[in-house]
């Protein structure tokens, strides 16, 4: 049975932009794969088409059928993790066995506050004056 796992050090799942991110990718396959790749990427999800940006990757060529390898990346300054009503942007680490479809991912948060930015409360509010007293009309 094929088994894939990806973990960060101390099981940390929230990171500040620009900070290092390290962990271990573990795989146990029935046969030795051609390669195993660990990817750091962001993706959007929501109403429209999905967008994906692979920021960094590390590749282990001709690995054993079962192994565990450390990885380390440095997060870029952005984009931050956020969610609105129409679109969410999420970050993830993914371990992929090549060739083929076997993959597993670990979702993480990249934000200066440590939490995903919540934009759902911004939409649909009436316009307000600078003093916050209400619509300008």
């Amino acid at each position, binding site marked *: 049975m094929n088994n894939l796992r990806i973990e960060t050090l101390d099981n940390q799942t929230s990171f500040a932009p620009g900070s290092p991110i390290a962990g271990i990718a573990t795989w146990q396959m029935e046969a030795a794969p051609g390669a195993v790749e660990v990817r750091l990427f962001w993706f959007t*999800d*929501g*109403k*429209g*088409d*999905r967008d994906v940006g692979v920021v960094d990757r590390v590749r282990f060529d001709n690995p054993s059928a079962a192994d565990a390898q450390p990885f380390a990346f440095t997060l870029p300054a952005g984009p931050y993790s956020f*969610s609105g009503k129409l679109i969410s942007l999420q970050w993830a680490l993914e371990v992929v066995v090549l060739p083929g479809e076997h993959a597993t991912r670990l979702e993480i948060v990249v934000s200066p506050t440590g939490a995903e930015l919540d934009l759902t409360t911004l939409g649909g509010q009436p316009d307000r004056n600078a003093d916050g007293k209400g619509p300008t009309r």
Partner: protein
Amino acid sequence: MKARDNPFRSERLLEIRFRPQESDWAGLLKRLDALGRRAAIVGPKGTGKSTLLEDLAQRFVQRGLRPRIVRVPDPRERFDSGSRRVRLADLVPRDLGPGDVLLVDSAENLNWLAWRSALTRARPAAGMVITAHRPGRLPTLIETRTSPQLLREIVDQLLAGSPALREKVDVDSLFAEHRGNLHEALRELYLRWAEQ
């Protein structure tokens, strides 16, 4: 509701694969072979043509062939990220060989010249399958259709485990309102959920 929690978000919709309505996969592939692997998936918008094309690509991979997918943009959106107009003649790869299958999504957006060029370039390939709204460019492999029952099955799948939410959706009205375009129907459900 946050986009990533919306049951009708794009990631969930991508999990829904083509469901042959009047045939099965074996019959479809047999017919495709009988047509010399040169055929068209024909149907109105939102009836699963592109989904079927993607699923066919997977079947070709299983047969040891290399699918080369070309998505032809709508004439009104024919600009790349640098705002340069996309040249239709450049969309179809020039290096197609016997191990390749050319898959052209929205082939009706190719003008006559680009279409002739695509046919020529696909000649050495093991096959060529296109999607189109109308029949004519290649023999029809299948005409995609939708039904209220199909929409019902998809909504049930996306709202599995939430019967209370499922009761809020009048599938028949939704299907009629969008004239069988399942993409539009599901997009409307996305927006309804987004406002919750």
